[in-house]
């Protein structure tokens, strides 16, 4: 005889197994994934192109700004840069540009800065408010004469997850947004190692994993399909995080 409790237990286990099976089905995942495009189109439709993320005051700063992901890149190359105080760190701008650049960290630090106090939202749910000092990405892309064929900007990072390099990408709307900067300073100091020393991206209308740290190369591309796993970022390639992380 099937007791009611047994019936409920078996029923809910079946339901859960069903959800897990759907979750593993490529076709169903495709349906779920289509919501990402819908969300991005909807947000872009109602957002003015240059709508700013809220800017806070010094009084609003998080007492401690936690870091996430890599807190110390584990390569010999990064250890050497750290030992040299990043004196020989360079950021390359290449790909679909008319004039490829290789900029020293000293040059980046001495360029005119934008300073913004913004809220950093992690995909996990927490938020921290920090003050960022950096060069608007648009200045570098203009200086490198971005090709009209370029659709995305890819950020190649010095940190590795296993043998895979971290990377991220954004489209031109976010790349030319006034708050999108290459930050070299945080809370009035040079950028600390856990937060991406010596240079990281701030792309304030998206979640934390888009804010690439330890940037060594900025590459303009026509399509993301040609870069690593083709989905536009380390987490996008490996665990199916959304490429559009505005929500």
């Amino acid at each position, binding site marked *: 005889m099937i007791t009611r409790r047994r019936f409920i237990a078996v029923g*809910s*286990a079946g339901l*859960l197994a069903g*959800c*897990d099976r759907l*979750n593993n089905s490529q076709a169903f*995942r495709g*349906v*779920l*994934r*289509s*919501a*990402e495009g*819908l*969300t991005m189109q909807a*947000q872009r439709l*109602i*957002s*003015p192109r240059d*709508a*700013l*993320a*809220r800017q*806070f005051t010094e009084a*609003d700063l*998080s*007492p*401690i*700004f*936690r870091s996430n992901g890599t807190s110390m890149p584990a390569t010999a190359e990064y250890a050497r840069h750290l030992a040299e105080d990043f004196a020989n760190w360079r950021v390359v701008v290449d790909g679909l540009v008319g004039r490829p650049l290789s900029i020293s960290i000293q040059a980046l630090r001495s360029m005119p800065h934008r300073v913004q106090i913004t*809220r950093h*939202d*992690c*995909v*996990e*749910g*927490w*938020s*921290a*408010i920090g003050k960022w000092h950096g060069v608007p990405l648009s200045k570098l892309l203009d200086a490198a004469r971005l090709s009209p064929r370029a659709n995305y900007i890819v950020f190649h990072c010095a940190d590795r997850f296993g043998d895979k390099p971290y990377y991220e990408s954004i489209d031109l709307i976010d790349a030319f947004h006034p708050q999108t900067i290459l930050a070299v300073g945080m809370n009035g100091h040079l950028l600390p190692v856990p937060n991406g020393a010596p240079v990281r991206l701030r792309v*304030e*209308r*998206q*979640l934390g994993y888009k804010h690439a740290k330890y940037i060594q190369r900025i590459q303009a591309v026509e399509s993301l399909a040609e870069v690593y796993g083709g989905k536009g970022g380390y*987490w996008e390639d490996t*665990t*199916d*995080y*959304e490429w559009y992380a*505005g*929500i």
Partner: protein
Amino acid sequence: MNDASEKSGRGGQKAASQRRIAYRHRLPTRIWHWINALAVIVMLMSGLMILNAHPRLYWGAYGANFDHAWLAFHGRPFPGWATIPSTYNLAAARRWHLAFAWVLVAGLVIFLFVSLWNRHLQRDLAPSGEQLKPTHVWEDIKAHARLRFPAGDAALHYNVLQKISYVAVIFGLIPLMSLTGLTMSPGMDAAWPWLVELFGGRQSARSIHFLCAAAILLFIVVHLVMVVLAGPINEVASMITGRFRVPPERAAE
């Protein structure tokens, strides 16, 4: 709900009233009920998995591990039977949550337009002035506490506690869930800065999102208990076919 009923003319008076079938739920109401039930359950279960990623809640604009949390769990507090998917996977839970959010919101908006048009809202859901009198509400609370459910014609209309709870969910909790959910989006906060002001910061919105989810879970539990007590087969069947077997009037005491 509809007053049109099909009375059986055969048998004794008692048998006739037992066999009386009324058309209680119209098609749009039934379709929305089941789509919404599916969407809400997926949202709750995928939402618990998302909360597993950082099971701490804060008030204000910011909040992370070093800040004061008003509610904090350790580890991954929500077990596999309560989450989608059943093993820890934030990315997949977000895919489910952010896709079914569209189903939930689109379903509610369409339901509200149709229900205004077919007068379901005005006729069936809006409590009358008479019903809202404290004495009437108190009588209804006492009747519920004694598990004495409406019979006869009274069973064809929502009672006042039902109306208040349905209106609270439809016009209060689900819209609040949607707005606080949107407030957690950094893209939306840039597009609509009033959102984050309305709720007093992103982490406050996240806390309110969780509290509303808990309230919706409470609603579901009470709703299901009421269905079971009122006769689960008749109640569920009426939400599928629209047809409801009217419980006979009780003999006067």
